[in-house]
């Protein structure tokens, strides 16, 4: 059954879209990762224009992060003050990011920048995940206890000005590092259509040294607002949010995430984590390949903004 997407202006199979939402939702439910960095490339591979994929995916992440952050909120796992500081950076990052996308679109380079960003980030995430999971598997085989890495001292962070007290995180640190993390995450959300949890969570643990209990909740809290802002900005600046596409992906994603979360409690995670890492690297290689191999058609057509 085909469905016509009013903003992407093409028709795609409903079950393909629901299925993609479901599979990515399953993986994110299982591993507790956001689905953006998996979904946006999949949408691009299925022929959705990259700028529509990015903006629409930001819209979908609003839905998944809302339900996630409500659960965290109920368990009192959100550091609201830290979330707001991150968000202030996120606002700057997303406004700049969306504006950058608009300029790049006019220059005809937006697809390239999206692809290059994905090669970079999928490559890094995939490699780190693979190393981590191989290590854990080896350790558990040799009978050693699997313990979380202790973060080292980051004295330079404590020398920065603008110190603030974050009661929930039991921290007294400068507001500059979280603001900068927020800016980066906002940029990524606008350019790549991701929530940015994969950058924010490690940054909170290793850089800001927040207690792990509040990391996920605070990150989701910030993601809700940043992706909402990115959706509204893309809708006004670029008119690239496809509500029909987003709704289909949400439907598949919500169901997939619930099944994934339950499966994650029963299955042994580490081998599957290695599999996810290989999948991420596979997508990275595919995007690389598309950039390097001579395309069969060197020319491309685009309608200018507001050309209707």
């Amino acid at each position: 059954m085909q469905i016509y997407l009013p903003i992407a202006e093409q028709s795609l199979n409903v079950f393909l879209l629901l299925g993609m939402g479901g599979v990515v939702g399953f993986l994110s439910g299982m591993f507790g990762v956001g689905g953006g960095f998996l979904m946006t490339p999949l949408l691009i591979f299925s022929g959705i224009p990259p700028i529509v994929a990015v903006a629409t995916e930001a819209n979908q992440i609003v839905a998944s992060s809302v339900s996630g952050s409500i659960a965290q909120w109920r368990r009192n796992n959100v550091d609201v003050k830290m979330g707001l500081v991150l968000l202030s950076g996120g606002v700057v990052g997303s406004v700049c990011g969306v504006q950058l996308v608009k300029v790049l679109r006019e220059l005809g380079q937006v697809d390239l920048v999206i692809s290059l960003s994905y090669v970079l980030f999928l490559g890094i995430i995939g490699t780190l995940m693979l190393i981590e999971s191989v290590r854990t598997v080896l350790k558990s085989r040799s009978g050693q206890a699997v313990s979380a890495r202790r973060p080292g001292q980051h004295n330079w962070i404590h020398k920065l000005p603008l110190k603030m007290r974050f009661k929930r995180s039991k921290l007294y640190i400068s507001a500059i590092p979280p603001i900068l993390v927020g800016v980066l995450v906002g940029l990524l959300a606008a350019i790549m259509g991701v929530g940015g949890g994969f950058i924010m969570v490690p940054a909170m643990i290793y850089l800001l040294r927040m207690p792990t209990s509040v990391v996920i909740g605070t990150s989701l809290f910030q993601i809700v607002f940043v992706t909402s802002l990115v959706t509204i900005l893309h809708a006004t600046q670029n008119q690239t949010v496809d509500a029909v596409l987003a709704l289909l992906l949400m439907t598949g994603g919500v169901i997939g995430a619930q099944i994934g979360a339950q499966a994650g409690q029963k299955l042994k995670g580490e081998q599957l984590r290695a599999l996810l890492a290989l999948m991420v690297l596979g997508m990275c290689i595919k995007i690389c390949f598309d950039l390097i191999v001579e395309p069969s058609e060197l020319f491309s057509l685009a309608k200018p903004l507001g050309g209707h």
Partner: protein
Amino acid sequence: MTARTILAGLALTIIVWTTMANIALAQKIEADLTTHAIRVETDFSGEKVALFGAVTGGDVDGSNMRPDIIIVVRGPKETINVRRKRRIAGIWINADGLTFKDVPGYYTTLTNRPISEIASFFTLGELGIGVSSVKSGLFIASAKESRIDSVDYIEAIVRILKRDKLYREADGGITFIGRHLFRAEFELPATVPIGDYEADVYLFRNEKLISQYTTGLAVEKQGVEQWIYSLAHEQPFLYGILSVLAAMAAGLAASAIFRKK
């Protein structure tokens, strides 16, 4: 009866006779589409449109030749940015570009026999029939850019739109039903541009255009598709807010449903 009235009667007879002969000689073409409005709705995945027509008037010249027909369907004109990729630092990057105005977003020709046998290249060019005349139109329009490679870009437009089934240039596609009735069919793919279309039906005899008939076709978004599309383009801020609210509602609904379980 005076000589005068005889003369007058004769003159009248001649006038009537010649007029009748002219009517008979002047074959005409009439046609219509099975639909004049294509509704792009949620389930739209492209559509086939049929055109029916008839050649009226007799074969008074005595030759038993069947007339020739060419149908041209032209879509709304669009501005298109064409970009060419070049290998820079090992990767393929959009390096050069050229913008064309008034490019037909859809262009299909249908004929009853090979177009080169129906009329000369020159005649077709004058009437703007055929993809080659679209190309020459774009070439003239781009002349002021004085780009040596504009031909490459024009060829690319036609090649890509043909690949996407938006341009079609085929000998054939028109079938005669008996001597005077004919039928043709053309396809509008799912990516068809929105706007007003024109179907021109040309009747040729001995390589000359003897009649022409034009009918219109509108491709328009309808229902939810239309609502979403126009909201997104006319009130983008409101559209953005609504998209976010819908997503939040979906997230809330999901957590409410699965919490009960």
